[in-house]
C-alpha cells in the first residue's frame, strides 16, 4: 500500500477542494486507484522500463539456459535479463503481445536474444558500459546500389567501452546497419563522399562525413533520451512526421539565440501565424499574442498557455501583464504553438485562440551537470522625437498671439489675450531682456543608458531511476527611461522518479517574484509637453515646471512625475504540479496530474502632495491594490498505444480534467497626507480615506476528452479528437458542449513512387477540420447581478443596490470552426524544407457583449450573436544554403497573412470600442464587413486656403483652419462625417533569419517585418493641434501661414481662440516596418581547450537587438499600443514608452 501513497495523497488533496456528488465520484476514483495499485503490486509485474539495481556485477558473458513454455515475450525478456543480471529497457508498445516457447541450453546472451526476437522486427543491444539490455525496433534495411565499404568500431566516448547495437545509416538514405556485440560494424555505401549517421538510444546522434576514408571509429557521447523530432502536443508527444495538425515549435537552441525577459519576446517571429506585438519598451511591458488573428469580439483573444500540463490563469492581471511573462525563458526547453483545430480541439472550450505549450527543462539521468548563463546588456533609445526648443517655443507662442484677433475677435477686444512677450519677466527663467535662461532637452533628461543583468544557474542530475533539476534565475532590468526597472528572482525544482517498474512519479515547483516600477502615463506625456524654457530644478533645488510660466497647462515636469509618482507592481507566481504514471499493461498507462497556479499581485502607488494634475488637488494620493488568482486542476489521462501486424499503429488517450479558478482583489485608497514620507505604507495616516473596494469571483470546469491517432503503414495518418466541457460560467441550460475534430495526413514521400526521388525527400499533406470553443467571459453573466450605487444623504454615504447585469440564462459557448490544409515539403535531402498552411476560421455564436437599448437601464448583455472570420496563409521556409565542413549557412523565412472580417452582429448595428476620443465619438468600431476594430475618423483634406474663404465660412471656419471632408455633403462637419479610415492589425508579418557558422563561430541575423498596420497617433492632440500651453512637436513650425498654405497643420493661435482636434487621416499613419531585431555572434570554445578544465561547453556571444527600424511612423516605434485593452492595437492615446536598442554580452557555461 505504501506504493500508493503519492496517488492517495493526490486524491485526498483533491477531495478537499470539491463538494457534493463530485466528491463521492472522485473519492471512488481514488479508492479504485489505490486498489489498482495494490493489485498491480501483488500480481504480475509491469514492464515499461525496468532497471534493476546491480548489487553484484552483471554477467553478460555467462551462458544461459532458458526453458519457456507459452511465456509472454516481455516476460521472457525479463527472465533473460534477470538471468544475466542486467536491466531491461524497452518500449512496451513495440513488443508484440505474443507468447514464446523455447528450449535453449547453455547459449550466449545474444544467441538467446536472437531466438526470442526472431520475427518480431525487434533487435537487442547490450552496451557493456551500461548494464542495460535494450530492446527496440529494428531499422528497415534496404538494398541499394552500393559500391564502397566502410567499417569501424563504436565506443562510449567517456568509458571507451565498445557499444553494440548502434545504428549506422547513410545520411539521406535508409541504407544502414548496426554494430555487433563487439561494437564493430561494416557497411557498404553508395560513395565515399557520403555522411554516416550514428545513433543509439541514450547517446547524441553523430554525423560523420566519410571523406574518402574506409575506416571510421566513433566515440559516442551520452545524452538524455529525447529524439529530435518529438513534438509536444496536447496531453502527449508525437513524432513530427506523424502530426496531422498544424504545430509550430521553438526549441532550446532558438530560445538561446535571443536574450529575452519573457516568453512573448522569445516567441516573437519564430512561428508563422503567431503575431507577437511588443507594444512597449517598458520593463515588464505587456505584449499581446494573437494566433491566426482575433477570434472574438468581446472576449480575450489571448491563447491558452499550458506549462508542463498546467493551464495558466487566463485572466489578465494587474497592469495588463499575463502569468506567462513571469516565467523566465531560460528555464524553457521548448515552446509549441498549436494552431489548427486538430491540434487545439483536445483543449476544447479553451482552444479557440490557439494553445501555447511550454515544456520546461528537466533533470538528466546523469550528472550532476551545472549550467551557468549570464549576460549584461546596455540599452538606449534609438530615436528622438523632434520637439520645440526654447527659442522655437517662444517664437510659436508669439506667432499664435499674433493670430488671436483673427480667430477670436471678441475675446481679443475684451482683453483676454496678452502679448506673451510681456509675461517673460520671471527672473528664474528669463534674463532682463526677456531671453530664456534654459533650453532643456527633456528627452536627454529622461533617457539613460540602461544596464540589464541576467543570471541563470542550473544543476541537474540523477541516476537511472531518478532525475532532478534545480534552476535559479535573476534578472535586473533597467528601463531606458529613468525610474523604471524590473527585478525578478525565480527558482524551480523538479524531480522524476521510478518508484517501481509500473509506477513513476514526479513533480515540479516554480516560484518567481517580480518587482517592477512603472512610469505614470504622464511621464511619457510630459516628455514632449515639458517646455524647454524651464529647467528640471532651479539652482536652489526646487522643482521647476510648466506652471512656472504663466498660461501653461501646468503638468508636472517629466523628471518630477517620474520620481514623485510611484507605481510599483509586485507579482509572485507559483506554478506547481505533481504527477504519477501507472502502467497497467504494456500498452496502457494512466497519468494523473494535480497542478496549481497561484498568482498574487500587489500594486502600490503614491503620488506626491504637490504634483499638479495628479495629486495636488487631493494633497497626495496613495493606494494599495492586492489581488490573488488561484487555480488548480486535476487530470487523469489513460494512454493506450499499440502496433498491429507491422502496419497498424494506434495511439489513443482518454482523459478527464476538472479545474477551479478563484480570484479576489481589493483596493484601498486614501487622500490627504501630512507628509510625502509615508508614501503607500501607511494609509491610515491620511485624513481622507476613500471608500474601499473588493471583489471575488470563481469558476469551475469539468471536462472529458479523447484522441485517437491511427497510422497505417507509416503513410496514412488519422486523428480524431473530442472533448466535452462543462463550465460554471453558463446557466444550467447550456452548461456542457462537445468539441470534435478530425484530421488526415498522407506522407506521400513514403509511397513507392517517391522512394529515392532525386528531388523530393519529404512530402506530407494534411488537412483538418474541427470545433473549438471560447468561454473566456466574465463569470456569472447568466444570472441577474445587482450593482452597488452610492447615494448621499445628510452628507454621508448611503449604499444603493440596483440594476447592473441583465440575466441571460441561455448563454452558451462560442464556437470556432476551423479548416486547415497544410503541406510539408522537403527537397534535396531536406536542404530545402517548406511548411505551408491555409486556413479559414469562423467564430459562430460569438459571445458578444451586445449593446442594449439603454431604455432598458442596461448597457450591454452577453449573447451568442454574431460571427467573424479569419482567413490566412502561413509559410515557413528553411534552407541549408551551404553545408561545408567549416562553413554553413542556413535561412529561415516565415510569413503570415491574415484577413479578418466581422460577418454578423446583433441587428447589424455597430459596436463602439476603444473609448472616446477628444473630438467626441468612438475611437474605433466593430462593424459588419470590416475587420474587427476599425479606426473611425475624419478625412483630412489639409487646411483651408485663402481662396477657399467663402467655402470655409459655410463651415464656420477660416483660411488656416483644418479642412475636413464633408462626407455627407450636408454643409456641416460633425460626427456624421466620421468614417472608417484604418486598422491597427497588420495585413502580414514575418521574419527572415539567417544563420552562418564558421568553425566554432556562429552568426545569426534576425529581421522582422510587418505591413499594413495603421497607427492612430492620438498623441498629436496635445502636441500638434494646440500650441502655447505646453511644448509641441517640431512639426508645428510647418503650420499654415498665408505663404505656406499646403500643409495639414492649422495656423497657430492661442487655444482659447478655438481649434479643431479630432482623429483623422492626418493622425493615422502607416505603421509598416522592417526591423533589425536580433544580431548575434557567438563562439563555442573548442572541446580540446575545455576538456582539461572539465568544462562541457563554453559559449560567448555578443548581440545587438533592435539595431534598426525602417518605418515612416513619426513616433518612437511602430509596434505600439498605449493600453492593454483587447483591441487597443495601434492606438496611441498618449505617448508610448520607447523601445531600446540593446547590446548584449553573454556567456553560456556548462560543467
Amino acid at each position, binding site marked *: 500500500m505504501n506504493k500508493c501513497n503519492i496517488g492517495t495523497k493526490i486524491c485526498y488533496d483533491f477531495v478537499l477542494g470539491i463538494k457534493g456528488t*463530485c466528491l463521492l465520484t472522485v473519492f471512488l476514483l481514488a479508492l479504485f486507484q489505490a486498489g489498482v495499485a495494490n493489485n498491480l503490486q501483488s500480481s504480475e509485474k509491469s514492464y515499461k522500463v525496468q532497471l534493476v539495481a546491480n548489487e553484484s556485477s552483471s554477467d553478460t558473458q555467462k551462458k544461459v539456459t532458458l526453458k519457456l513454455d507459452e511465456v509472454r515475450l516481455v516476460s521472457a525478456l525479463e527472465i533473460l535479463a534477470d538471468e544475466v543480471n542486467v536491466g531491461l529497457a524497452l518500449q512496451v508498445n513495440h513488443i508484440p503481445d505474443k507468447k514464446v516457447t523455447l528450449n535453449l541450453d547453455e547459449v550466449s546472451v545474444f544467441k538467446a536474444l536472437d531466438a526470442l526476437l526472431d520475427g518480431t522486427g525487434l533487435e537487442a543491444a547490450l552496451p557493456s558500459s551500461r548494464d542495460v539490455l535494450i530492446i527496440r525496433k529494428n531499422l528497415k534495411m534496404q538494398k541499394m546500389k552500393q559500391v564502397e565499404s566502410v567499417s569501424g568500431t563504436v565506443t562510449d566516448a567517456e568509458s571507451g567501452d565498445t557499444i553494440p547495437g548502434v545504428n549506422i545509416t547513410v545520411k539521406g538514405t535508409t541504407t544502414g546497419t548496426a554494430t555487433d556485440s563487439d561494437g564493430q560494424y561494416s557497411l557498404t555505401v553508395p560513395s565515399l563522399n557520403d555522411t554516416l549517421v550514428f545513433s543509439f538510444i541514450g547517446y547524441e546522434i553523430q554525423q560523420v562525413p566519410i571523406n574518402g576514408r574506409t575506416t571510421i571509429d566513433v566515440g559516442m557521447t551520452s545524452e538524455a533520451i529525447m529524439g529530435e523530432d518529438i513534438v509536444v502536443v496536447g496531453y502527449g508527444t508525437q513524432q513530427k512526421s506523424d502530426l496531422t495538425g498544424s504545430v509550430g515549435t521553438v526549441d532550446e537552441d532558438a530560445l538561446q539565440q535571443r536574450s529575452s525577459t519573457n516568453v512573448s519576446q522569445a516567441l516573437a517571429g519564430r512561428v508563422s501565424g503567431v503575431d507577437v506585438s511588443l507594444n512597449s519598451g517598458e520593463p515588464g511591458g505587456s505584449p499581446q499574442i494573437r494566433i491566426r488573428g482575433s477570434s472574438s469580439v468581446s472576449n480575450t483573444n489571448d491563447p491558452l498557455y499550458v506549462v508542463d500540463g498546467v493551464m495558466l490563469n487566463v485572466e489578465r492581471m494587474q497592469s495588463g501583464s499575463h502569468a506567462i511573462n513571469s516565467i523566465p525563458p531560460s528555464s524553457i526547453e521548448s515552446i509549441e504553438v498549436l494552431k489548427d483545430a486538430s491540434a487545439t480541439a483536445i483543449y476544447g472550450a479553451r482552444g479557440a485562440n490557439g494553445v501555447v505549450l511550454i515544456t520546461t527543462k528537466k533533470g538528466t539521468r546523469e550528472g550532476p551537470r551545472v549550467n551557468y548563463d549570464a549576460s549584461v546588456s546596455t540599452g538606449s533609445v534609438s530615436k528622438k522625437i523632434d520637439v520645440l526648443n526654447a527659442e522655437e517655443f517662444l517664437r510659436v507662442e508669439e506667432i499664435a498671439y499674433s493670430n488671436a484677433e483673427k480667430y477670436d475677435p471678441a475675446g481679443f477686444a475684451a482683453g483676454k489675450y496678452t502679448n506673451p512677450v510681456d509675461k517673460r519677466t520671471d527672473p528664474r527663467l528669463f534674463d532682463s531682456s526677456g531671453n530664456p535662461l534654459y533650453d532643456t532637452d527633456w528627452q536627454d533628461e529622461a533617457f539613460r543608458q540602461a544596464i540589464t543583468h541576467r543570471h541563470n544557474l542550473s544543476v541537474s542530475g540523477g541516476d537511472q531511476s531518478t532525475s532532478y533539476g534545480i534552476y535559479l534565475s535573476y534578472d535586473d532590468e533597467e528601463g531606458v527611461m529613468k525610474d523604471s526597472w524590473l527585478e525578478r528572482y525565480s527558482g524551480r525544482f523538479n524531480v522524476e522518479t521510478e518508484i517501481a517498474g509500473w509506477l513513476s512519479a514526479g513533480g515540479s515547483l516554480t516560484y518567481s517574484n517580480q518587482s517592477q516600477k512603472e512610469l505614470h502615463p504622464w511621464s511619457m506625456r510630459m516628455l514632449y509637453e515639458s517646455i524647454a524654457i524651464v529647467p528640471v530644478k532651479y539652482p536652489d533645488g526646487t522643482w521647476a515646471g510648466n506652471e512656472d510660466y504663466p498660461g501653461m497647462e501646468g503638468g508636472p515636469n517629466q523628471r518630477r512625475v517620474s520620481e514623485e509618482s510611484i507605481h510599483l507592481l509586485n507579482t509572485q507566481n507559483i506554478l506547481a504540479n505533481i504527477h504519477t504514471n501507472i502502467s497497467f*499493461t504494456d500498452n496502457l498507462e494512466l497519468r494523473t496530474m494535480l497542478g496549481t497556479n497561484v498568482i498574487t499581485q500587489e500594486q502600490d502607488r503614491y503620488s506626491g502632495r504637490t504634483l499638479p494634475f495628479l495629486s495636488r488637488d487631493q494633497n497626495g494620493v496613495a493606494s494599495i491594490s492586492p489581488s490573488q488568482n488561484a487555480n488548480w486542476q486535476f487530470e487523469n489521462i489513460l494512454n493506450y498505444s499499440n502496433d498491429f501486424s507491422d502496419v497498424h499503429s494506434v495511439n489513443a488517450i482518454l482523459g478527464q480534467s476538472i479545474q477551479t479558478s478563484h480570484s479576489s482583489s481589493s483596493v484601498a485608497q486614501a487622500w490627504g497626507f501630512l507628509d510625502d514620507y509615508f508614501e503607500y505604507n501607511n494609509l491610515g495616516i491620511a485624513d481622507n480615506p476613500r471608500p474601499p473596494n473588493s471583489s471575488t469571483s470563481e469558476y469551475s470546469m469539468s471536462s472529458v476528452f479523447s484522441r485517437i491517432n491511427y497510422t497505417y503503414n507509416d503513410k496514412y495518418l488519422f486523428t480524431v479528437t473530442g472533448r466535452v466541457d462543462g463550465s460554471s460560467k453558463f446557466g444550467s441550460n447550456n452548461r456542457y458542449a462537445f468539441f470534435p475534430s478530425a484530421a488526415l495526413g498522407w506522407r506521400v514521400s513514403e509511397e513507392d513512387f517517391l522512394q529515392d526521388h532525386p528531388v523530393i525527400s519529404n512530402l506530407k499533406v494534411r488537412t483538418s477540420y474541427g470545433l473549438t470553443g471560447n468561454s473566456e467571459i466574465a463569470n456569472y453573466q447568466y444570472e441577474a447581478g445587482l450593482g452597488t450605487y452610492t447615494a448621499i444623504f445628510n452628507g454621508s454615504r448611503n449604499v444603493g443596490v*440596483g440594476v447592473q447585469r441583465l440575466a441571460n440564462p441561455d448563454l452558451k459557448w462560442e464556437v470556432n470552426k476551423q479548416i486547415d490544409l497544410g503541406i510539408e515539403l522537403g527537397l534535396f535531402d531536406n536542404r530545402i524544407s517548406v511548411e505551408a498552411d491555409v486556413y479559414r476560421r469562423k467564430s459562430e455564436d460569438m459571445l458578444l457583449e451586445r*449593446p442594449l*437599448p439603454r431604455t*432598458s*437601464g442596461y448597457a450591454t448583455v452577453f449573447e451568442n450573436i454574431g460571427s467573424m472570420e479569419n482567413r490566412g496563409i502561413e509559410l515557413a521556409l528553411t534552407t541549408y544554403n551551404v553545408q561545408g565542413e567549416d562553413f554553413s549557412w542556413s535561412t529561415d523565412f516565415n510569413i503570415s497573412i491574415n484577413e479578418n472580417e466581422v460577418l454578423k452582429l446583433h441587428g447589424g448595428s455597430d459596436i463602439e470600442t476603444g473609448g472616446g476620443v477628444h*473630438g467626441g465619438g468612438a475611437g474605433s468600431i466593430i462593424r459588419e464587413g470590416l475587420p474587427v476594430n476599425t479606426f473611425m475618423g475624419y478625412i483630412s483634406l489639409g487646411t483651408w486656403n485663402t481662396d477657399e474663404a467663402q467655402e470655409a465660412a459655410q463651415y464656420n471656419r477660416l483660411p488656416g483652419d483644418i479642412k475636413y471632408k464633408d462626407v455627407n455633403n450636408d454643409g456641416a462637419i460633425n460626427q456624421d462625417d466620421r468614417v472608417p479610415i484604418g486598422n491597427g492589425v497588420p495585413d502580414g508579418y514575418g521574419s527572415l533569419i539567417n544563420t552562418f557558422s564558421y568553425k566554432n563561430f556562429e552568426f545569426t541575423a534576425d529581421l522582422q517585418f510587418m505591413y499594413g498596420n495603421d497607427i492612430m497617433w492620438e498623441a498629436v492632440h496635445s502636441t500638434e493641434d494646440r500650441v502655447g500651453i505646453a511644448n509641441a512637436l517640431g512639426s508645428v513650425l510647418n503650420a499654415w501661414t498665408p505663404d505656406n498654405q499646403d500643409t495639414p497643420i492649422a495656423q497657430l493661435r492661442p487655444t*482659447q481662440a478655438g481649434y479643431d482636434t479630432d482623429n483623422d487621416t492626418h493622425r493615422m499613419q502607416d505603421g509598416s516596418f522592417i526591423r533589425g531585431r536580433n544580431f548575434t555572434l557567438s563562439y563555442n570554445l573548442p572541446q580540446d581547450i575545455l576538456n582539461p578544465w572539465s568544462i562541457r561547453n563554453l559559449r560567448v556571444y555578443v548581440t545587438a537587438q533592435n539595431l534598426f527600424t525602417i518605418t515612416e511612423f513619426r513616433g518612437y516605434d511602430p509596434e505600439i499600443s498605449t493600453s492593454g485593452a483587447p483591441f487597443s492595437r495601434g492606438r496611441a492615446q498618449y505617448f508610448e514608452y520607447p523601445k531600446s536598442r540593446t547590446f548584449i554580452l553573454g556567456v553560456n557555461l556548462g560543467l
Partner: protein
Amino acid sequence: MRKLTSYIILSSFIVLVVSGCDEFLSHSDPTSFTKNNYYTEPAHAEAAVNAIYEDLRAVRGGGFGGAPWLMTEFQTGLANTELGQATNSLDIRALDNSADNGYGQTYWNSHYRGIANANEALANIPNIEQLGEAQKNRLLGEARFLRAYYYYNLVRIFGDVPLILEPVGLDSENLAPERTPVADVYNAIVEDLTWVESNSGLPFNNESGRVTMGAVKTLLSSVYLTMAGYPLQGGDQYFQLARDKAKEVIDSQEYRLFDTYGEIKDVSLENTGEHIFMVQFDAEIVDHNGLQYVTLPYNQDISLFSAETGGIFAQEEFVESYESGDKRTEEKQFYYSEFSPVSDRNTTKNLGGWYLYKFFDYEANVETAVSGMNWPLFRYAEVLLIFAEAENEVNGGPTTEAYDAVNEIRERAEISDLSGLSQDEFREAVWEEKFHELSFENKTWFDMVRIRKAYDPVSGTFEDYVGHQFVYGPTLSERELLYPIPASEIRNNENLSQNEGY
C-alpha cells in the same frame, strides 16, 4: 487481473462523467446580489430606492471634454466656451449638433438607468412583507418622484420617448420599445407625482437631501406650467394647476429666498432655505470638482485646481442685458471677470470674460482643491416665478400676489419693483426675470421651448424661437426644438425613429 483493473479505472471515469458534477459547476456571485435573492428585507427596499438617486449626478461633472449639463446651455445662444477640444459643446453652440453627441447620450443613458432602478423598486418593494406601511409609502413616493423627474427631462429634451414603467428583461417586449407620444409621457409623470402627493406621506421639508413634499409640489407646478405651454399647449387649466401647486409651496412657509447670492452656493446652507431639491455631492464621498474645472477660466492660474478648462462662461451680451445696477451682475455675484492669480492673491487679473461665480466654490479654489458643492435642481426663486407667470395667465393680468412674487426676487437684486404692466408686459417681464435669475442652472432652454421664444440679449426682447439668430451668428430652426435621439440608441433599437432634421 490487469484487465479487471483497467475496467475499474475506465468505469470510474464514466461515473465521473455521468455524475456531471453539477454542483461543482454551480457558483453564485459572492460580490453582488442577484434578483433571485434580493428584495426580501426592509433594508433592501431602502437600498433599492437609494440607487435611483445616483443618476441625478450623471449629467453633472466636467473636465477637458466639457460636461453633459452644458448641452442645454449652449443651445440658448447665451453661453460661450474657450475649451477648444470639447466638440460636443462646440457643435451644439454652432447649432451643428448631431446624434453622436456624447452629452445627449449621457442624458439618455443615465436617465433611463434611473428609471430602470425606479421600476425595479416600484415592482418589488410592495412584495417585501416585513416593510411597514409608512416606510413603504415613503419609499414608493421617492421612487415615483425620481422616475417622474427623469421622464420630465427626457420628454422635454427628446420629445416622444419610450415610456417604460415596468422592469425590463431579455424577453420583455419593452427591450426594444417604440416611442410614446409626448402627451402620454406627461400623463404618466402627472400620475406618478399626484400619487406621491396624496399617498407618500413625505415630509414637506427636511435637510437630508431626500425627496420632500415641497420638491414634489414644485416639480408638479413646473410640469403643469410646461403642459400649459408647448408642445401640449394645455392652456389655462394647466396654468391654474401650476399656480395652485406653486402657491402651496409658497404658503407652506417652509422655504425662503436667501438674503445674499453668496448663500445660494454656501455649502453649509445646502438643502435649507431657498433650496427645495438638490443633487447631493460631498467632498469626502463624491466630489464635484468637475463643476469647478469646467467653469474656471482656461489656464489662467487663478485656482488651486490643476484643471481650469473654460468649458462655459457667459456670453458678454447676456451679462450686459441685465438692468443697470442689478446686484446679480456686480463683480463676484452671479459672474466674475477678474480674480487673483494663485501666485499672488493680493493682486487681481482681468480674465477677459464673464465666468460663472454662481458655481464658484471659493474655499475649494483658494484653499482645499476639493469641492463637494451640490447642484440646485429647484430653488424657491423658481417657485415664485412660476407662480407669478401662472397667476398672470389665470387672472388675465398681474395680481398683487403676482407682483409680490416677482418683486421679491428683484428686491434681492436691488432693482426697482415692477408695477403697472399689462398682462403681456408682465408675462415677458417674468420670463426675463427668470432667464436672469436662473441663468446657467439648466432652466433657460426648457423655458425657451416651452414658450417658443428666445431672448435677444441686445434688444432685451423676446423673439420667436424658430428663426432667432444668436448674437454670434447661428440661427435656431425648428430642428432645435428637440435634441437628437442618440445615434447608438437608434442603432440598437430598430423600433426608434430619429427626430426631424437630425
